[in-house]
């Protein structure tokens, strides 16, 4: 049983946490793709930016002497999300809107998003250097240990407070997004525009407003994902640069333009990564004597240092097997 609990801790909990972060990022990418038809490469850096906004706010709150029962990073998150949404609107107005007005191709917008990536990353590094920061300098990261009420079980189910809050708030966001997209007028307009932008415009949908709402949602969710990632590990200027690949993989696997697909894709990639680097020897060890072969010490599907490749291999398989993603995605 101990082994199963170890499995639960390292695979299920980590997978949920990783999946939540990926899903939040992938929703933004997929929404932007659905509405504006370009792959937004700067999304990873918008996440990092969000993480740093929360970090600054949390530092300000701590300096003001305000304490809260939960991690400060979470308390300031709503404010940070509003700031990030405003910044996302500004980025669109400053960089993408002029190109769209000129009638530039989606590929040009994609290259522009690389420019935005470099600018955001350059600015962050200019102000914060290249070191890493943590939210938990002054306060402790609370750890939960749940006893399992079974005989012969010594291990406990472990997770931290940020992890718990992360999974819960992702679930809330997903439900809220679902209600928004299916019940509200604006959400329906967004889906209509994602299906056919021209048709949406002639039917009287305010496409400019839809674009703004898209950036607000994408920016605030990116901030949320970035903050969570920073709370879970640590905050670095190149935090999200490595994560933009799995997030794109999640969005593509789910079908670009499909919000539910992005969520599914996020969790799929998250669990695949944790499952692939899990050492299966640990689960097999109790039945060592019954096995016909010697059990090696490490029986992970891929070595830990190749974790990044897992997302990509899944991406390639899905693209070959079903090019539009699991949920049928939009095309350029």
């Amino acid at each position, binding site marked *: 049983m101990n082994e199963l609990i170890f499995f639960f801790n390292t695979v299920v909990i980590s997978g949920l946490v990783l999946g939540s972060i990926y899903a939040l990022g992938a929703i933004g990418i997929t929404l932007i793709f659905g509405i504006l038809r370009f792959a937004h490469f700067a999304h990873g850096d918008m996440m990092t930016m969000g993480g740093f906004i929360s970090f600054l706010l949390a530092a300000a709150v701590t300096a003001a002497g305000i304490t809260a029962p939960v991690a400060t990073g979470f308390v300031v998150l709503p404010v940070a999300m509003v700031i990030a949404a405003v910044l996302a609107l500004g980025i669109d107005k400053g960089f993408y809107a*002029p190109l769209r007005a000129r009638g530039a191709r989606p590929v*040009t917008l994609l290259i522009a998003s690389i420019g935005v990536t470099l600018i955001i990353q350059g600015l962050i590094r200019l102000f914060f250097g290249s070191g890493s920061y943590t939210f938990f300098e002054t306060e402790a990261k609370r750890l939960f240990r749940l006893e399992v009420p079974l005989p012969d079980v010594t291990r406990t189910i472990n997770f931290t407070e940020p992890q718990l809050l992360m999974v819960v708030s992702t679930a809330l966001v997903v439900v809220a997004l679902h209600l928004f997209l299916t019940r509200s007028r604006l959400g329906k307009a967004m889906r209509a525009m994602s299906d056919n932008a021209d048709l949406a415009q002639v039917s009287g949908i305010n496409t400019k407003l839809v674009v703004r709402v898209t950036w607000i949602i994408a920016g605030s969710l990116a901030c949320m994902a970035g903050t969570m990632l920073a709370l879970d590990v640590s905050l670095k200027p190149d935090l999200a640069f490595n994560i933009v690949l799995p997030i794109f993989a999640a969005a593509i696997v789910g079908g670009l333009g499909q919000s539910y697909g992005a969520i599914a894709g996020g969790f799929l990639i998250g669990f695949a990564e944790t499952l692939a680097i899990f050492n299966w020897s640990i689960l097999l060890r109790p039945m060592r004597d019954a096995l016909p072969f010697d059990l090696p010490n490490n029986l992970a599907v891929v070595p830990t240092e190749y974790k990044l490749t897992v997302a990509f291999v899944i991406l390639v398989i899905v693209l070959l097997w079903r090019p539009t993603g699991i949920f049928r995605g939009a095309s350029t």
Partner: protein
Amino acid sequence: MMQRSALLFAGLFLLFVAVGWVLGAANITLLLVQSFAYALIALGLNIQWGYGGLFNFGIMGFLMLGGFAVTFISYPINAAFWDSEGPLLLARALAAFAAGTLLVFGASRAHHLGIRGGWKTALTVVAWSVAYIVYRSQIDPAVAYIEGGAGWIGGLGLHPVLGWAFGGVLAAGVAYIVGRICLGLRTDYLAIATIGISEIIRALLKNMDWLTRGTLTVSPISWPTPLPQELQAQGIGIADSFVYARLGFLAVVIVVLVGLFFLVERAYGGPWGRMMRAIRDNHIAAASMGKDVTARQLEIFILGSVMMGIGGAILISFGQIYDPSSYQPISHTFLIWVMVIVGGAGNNWGAVFGALLIYLTWMISDPIAQALFTTISSWTSDAGWGPIPEIQSRASQMRVLVLGLVITVALRFAPRGLIPEVVKREA
């Protein structure tokens, strides 16, 4: 148009002279060698993106392959490895790899035996898993043995120019596989797929210590021309030796660049180039005229990657150290994109111009930012706010910001580049 390009190149020449004046001859020759190597890489991207409209965000991977190739070919032979059991174990791993490839290939042809649909998928999955397990069962002990004993396999001790050529060959091989998998994809997907592949190549080369020494790095890698130390041994002064040695290297790089430039320029003007542009501008129309779009795109993807591989090999050969962790997407992928976009996609002169200009900008942003920060810092100190902390490390980040600003401004105000592609129309 010709006048404008000539003017731009003259301006660039003056800029290099001015920078050389400030930095000294040794530094400007270093900068020149590197920027001409980047020009070669930019030319490769210009073939892929400018001629063929293919989105390659995986340049870093091809540069790494080139760097590995020159290391492997030109580094002295590691006798400890060749005297041990290592080669035998590696040969067995290679045999296992070949067997696995054969198995997977066989499974992919299973429809000839009447196995179809779900059964074929199942068979493919089984074949892949078996191949993977067989390969891992052979390679893992071989790796453990080599890393525990000889350390790594060492090089072959051949001439570095052979290494450059091998960089091209290796890049071509990988580009073929990548192209077969990814070229059917749409632009955005191709961008992601190539980024992913370059990350995989980086992860592999960084962690395969038995092959590349990974983070331990390999140096010194030999030059095709005399090294500064060799010139010093002949009695040339230390300062002069660096200038002469780098000029010698520069001459070789320029010969390679001019040769390849001539070839791609001829190809652009010929029927092949016209066909590529036709495919780029409207692949459906080109296909309806009987052009094999996928095969032609694969061809151009490989050609561009070869140039990237050679360029990457030259860079590593010149730097003399192969450090897989020094490769970053910003300085090895996006930098080159900025070069081609700013210079003018589709125009070889533009690509070379962009490469030289952007590389110079990239390199001098650092000292300029440092000077700027020191000035501001002295103001803030005078004003009583204290100096700016860590000026050195901050200033080196400035170039990322400058690069971002340059490409954004270029896309906004000169979307076709400074020396745009000339579209000839028959009157």
